[in-house]
């Protein structure tokens, strides 16, 4: 991945309407699946929905709707760092609670 001025200067290429419509369909289907899993009243399946389906939906929004997929590597690393910090916050707080 190039870090040159010219590369960063370019607005990312135009993504087609169809791509975004497909992502939207995937998001709606995943929402249906999430609700379906929670209605089974089995805590393990509902937890799976929360820990797998929800982050998947958020990633689809980040990568496609927020164009992250088409951005420079530098911006991708920045987003990863921000989310990493958030995960450290959550992890440390929970470890404090669990091992108190």
């Amino acid at each position, binding site marked *: 991945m190039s870090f040159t001025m010219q590369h*960063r200067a*370019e*607005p990312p290429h135009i993504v087609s309407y169809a791509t975004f*419509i497909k992502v939207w369909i995937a998001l709606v289907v995943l929402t249906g699946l999430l609700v379906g899993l*929670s209605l089974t009243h089995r805590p393990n399946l509902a937890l799976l929905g929360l820990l797998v389906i*929800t982050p998947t939906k958020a990633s689809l929004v980040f990568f496609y709707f927020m*164009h992250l997929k088409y951005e420079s590597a530098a911006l991708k690393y920045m*987003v990863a760092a921000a989310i990493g910090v*958030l995960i450290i916050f959550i992890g440390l707080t929970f470890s404090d609670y669990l091992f108190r």
Partner: protein
Amino acid sequence: MSVSAQPLVAEHGGEHRDYGGAKLGMWIFVFTELILFGGLFVAYGMYRAMHAHEFHKASGELNLTLGVINTVVLLTSSLSMVLSIVAIRLQRKRQSMIFLACTMLLGAVFLVNKFFEWKAKFHHGLYPGSEHLMARPPGERLFFGLYFGMTGLHGLHVTIGVVVMSVMMVFLARDRIRHDDFIKLENTGLYWHLVDVIWIFLLPLFYLAA
């Protein structure tokens, strides 16, 4: 001038523009929002761990149908938002304005649903500090406190988003946002999608916790 040849910082007829810098600034703002809501999610997680049963019971009182409808409304508004950006880049100004209007309308639908949802809760005596709520177990009080606090803060973000979009609509109409200068609309989109991402997490935590 072709779009691909646009330099990072450029003068356009005396007008200073910095596409990369403008976008980076918006992303940094998005990070601060992630940490803001992240803190609230941590608070939710801790209290839920301490009061699992009461959170489970209180969550069952929320209107799941309205929660799911609002999720689909916000996801669809995110779609119309990106389509508005694609349209202006393809020099389809009218289409871009129609998509942006759809996004604003869906944002308003979300808020109207939220209004009726909260109204029903208030009707049942459930609002922060109410006698009915204060008489309930601590876990349920915490659940409803977090519910009103987090969905309220999210609703405030939706309201701000709709206001910002109405300004973008004027910019589009006056050609201040064009196919070769669309960063204002793109940054509005980044904000709107962030609001969508936050709701994506609020749905399972509040409405599906039962």
